[in-house]
């Protein structure tokens, strides 16, 4: 090896060279005295520079940070999509500081007085808002009953399937009894199909962790496994009560059903039961949520809830918007307890109970294993289709390409842990993986058939294969859906229990025994971690 120049030693000292080259350079330096001295000099200079820069520009960093944090405006900076509607009209401290610096001291003093007054006024108003909202939450907690009308509209904005209904509202009433610990919820709904209302057809009763659904007056399904996931209706109130911090926006006042009401808006992760987004889990629980609460100014209790939730499936292949409105909300009104009675044993009959896996660490690990396994199988099938398309000299049909996108093949763990997203990806992967067994070997077409007979045979074989694949796909998707639910529900449960869960998802390589995939806090202050190799252990610290 010829002796490298000074630039190379500089780059080596800064650790900017490929490992292979760096190794050979280090080896050379051990053999060549002159180069060894050059390397030593470069390394020494590197250390000096590091020290110089960090010392020179530290400038009482901690004090300055505290000073800056104290100067930040009290209000939350608005998200882009909302910024036009309610842009902050007052200048921030930085702008004031710049303006003042450009003018004489007298101007500065004169400008400072109104600015300080404005800031104090804003502080006062914001504090008042927090108190009012906290008061509302407290009154909800104390309420014994609640009734309201609801309208839910599910609109498929993108990726509408053939024959799938969209934009058709479901409406009805919600009644809730609260015994101080848990809600009993009764939803009686009617679905308007193309403008034709079919009244009283759906009844849903949740008693703690047991759920019953009546369709046409008959119990059709019993769900006794939702202990980790509260039903949607109850979930919204729970989510609302979990919002300890102030709402994101004050919507002002307006008249609702003849009553004066003040509005509050909460968006994003706060509604994910307090689970903050982390590096690997940017949207831990359907972060694209907006909840508006309209509070009766006389009673200090909500009279209307508006919930807007956008579910974006993998790679934007399907976008669904769910709009819910709870209107005419009445609190502490007498309700007939008989309506909250579970169905009798005779009424239940022999209906099967769908069992979901337990919501625990083992279920999470099991779910992740299946995620990885399904990915491998799905990828094989995707590659097969791609190869076929390539051999024919064309591209994949658009619909098929969309489905493949939906499988979110990333060679790693799920990038998010929200239930709807996970269930969708699991189902697609399972359906693709099931093709391994269902796609039949291509049998040769007998040559003694006429052209029409040959075409008919090919068509009927194709139909048969498609039917078998669809059936197996649906079966496989149904089988794995609970696994997806278990993963999401476990994270949700940890967040709900305030165990500070952090999920690093797609940033962790499967099999990496060093990287943490999921961590949460235990009662004794230590942490439980699940690593990239899906082994769990308890550690004192996760730093």
């Amino acid at each position: 090896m010829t002796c490298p120049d000074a630039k190379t030693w500089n780059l080596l000292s800064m650790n900017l060279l490929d490992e292979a080259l760096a190794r050979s350079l280090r080896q050379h330096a051990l053999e060549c005295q002159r180069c060894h001295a050059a390397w030593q000099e470069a390394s020494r200079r590197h250390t000096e520079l590091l020290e110089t820069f960090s010392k020179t520009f530290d400038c009482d960093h901690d004090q300055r940070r505290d000073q800056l944090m104290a100067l930040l405006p009290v209000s939350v900076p608005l998200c882009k999509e909302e910024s036009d509607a309610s842009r902050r009209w007052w200048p921030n401290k930085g702008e004031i500081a710049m303006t003042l610096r450009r003018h004489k001291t007298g101007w500065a003093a004169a400008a400072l007085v109104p600015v300080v007054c404005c800031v104090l006024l804003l502080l006062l108003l914001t504090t008042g808002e927090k108190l009012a909202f906290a008061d509302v939450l407290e009154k909800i907690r104390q309420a014994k009953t609640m009734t309201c009308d609801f309208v839910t509209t599910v609109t498929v904005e993108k990726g509408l399937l053939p024959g799938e209904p969209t934009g058709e509202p479901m409406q009805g009433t919600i009644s809730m009894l609260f015994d101080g610990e848990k809600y009993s919820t009764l939803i009686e709904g009617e679905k308007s199909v193309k403008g034709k209302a079919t009244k009283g057809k759906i009844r849903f009763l949740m008693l703690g962790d047991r759920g019953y659904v009546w369709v046409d007056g008959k119990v059709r399904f019993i769900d006794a496994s939702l202990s980790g996931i509260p039903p949607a209706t109850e979930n919204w109130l729970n989510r609302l009560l979990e919002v300890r911090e102030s709402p994101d926006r004050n919507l002002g006042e307006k008249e609702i059903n003849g009553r004066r009401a003040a509005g509050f808006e909460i968006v994003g992760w706060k509604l994910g039961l307090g689970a903050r987004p982390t590096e690997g889990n940017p949207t831990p629980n359907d972060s694209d949520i907006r909840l508006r609460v309209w509070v009766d100014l006389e009673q200090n209790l909500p009279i209307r809830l508006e919930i807007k939730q956008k579910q974006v499936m993998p790679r934007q292949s399907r976008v669904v918007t769910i709009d819910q409105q709870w209107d005419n909300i009445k609190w502490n009104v007498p309700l007939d307890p008989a309506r909250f009675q579970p169905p009798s044993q005779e009424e239940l009959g022999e209906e099967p109970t769908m069992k979901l896996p337990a919501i625990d660490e083992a279920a999470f690990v099991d779910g992740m294993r299946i995620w990885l396994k399904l990915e491998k199988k799905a990828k094989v099938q995707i590659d097969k289709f791609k190869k076929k398309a390539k051999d024919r000299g064309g591209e994949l049909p658009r619909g098929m390409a969309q489905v493949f996108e939906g499988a979110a093949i990333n060679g790693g763990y799920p990038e998010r842990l929200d239930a709807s997203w996970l269930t969708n990806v699991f189902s697609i992967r399972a359906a693709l993986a099931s093709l391994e067994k269902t796609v039949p070997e291509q049998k040769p077409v007998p040559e003694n058939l006429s052209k029409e007979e040959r075409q008919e045979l090919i068509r009927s074989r194709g139909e048969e294969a498609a039917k078998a694949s669809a059936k197996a796909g649906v079966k496989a998707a149904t089988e794995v859906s609970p696994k997806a639910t278990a993963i999401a529900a476990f994270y949700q449960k940890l967040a709900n229990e305030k165990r500070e869960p952090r999920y690093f998802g797609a940033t962790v390589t499967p099999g990496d025994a060093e990287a943490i995939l999921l961590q949460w806090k235990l009662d004794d202050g230590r942490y439980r971690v699940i690593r990239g190799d899906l082994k769990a252990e308890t550690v004192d610290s996760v730093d």
Partner: protein
Amino acid sequence: MKETDGALAKAARRGDRSAFAELYDRRARLIRAICFNTTDDLHSAADLTQEVFLRAYSKLDSLRDPERFSAWLTGIARQVCREWIRGRLRDRQLARPLPKEVEPVTRQHEASPHLETLQKDLAKLPERERLCLQAFYLQDLDAEQARSVVGLSKSTFYRVLAKARERLATIHRREEVKS
């Protein structure tokens, strides 16, 4: 595991002040260095840095790609520096005190003579080379981050960085000979 700038910027945008404080901890030193290139005075550079972060906080909603927070912040720093120069030219004054509410808390930096020499040498580097060094050494030695801040390709950035180090060594040797 460290959260990315993007994740922190998003959290800050949602009102998480601790996330913004973390961003400040990570990037304030670089911004001070950039401001120092203009002001040639650490006090003023530190004050301008506060302004840069205040301005960044109020404009977080206009940050299109949170992952490019550092580069975006550097842009704000350059704008603030330009305004500072304009203000200085207009007022014919080298340095102006900040208003009372942002009273500086910085003490005079007490550097060792050795470090002072190095600082003086650094000041003699061309601006681009100095900026590359600052970006690299003040961004946790993360070449990719530093590269995106100064807006150079990977190969150019490495070349400028190596050149800067070489030039710095030459300046140092020349100064030693002089003294």
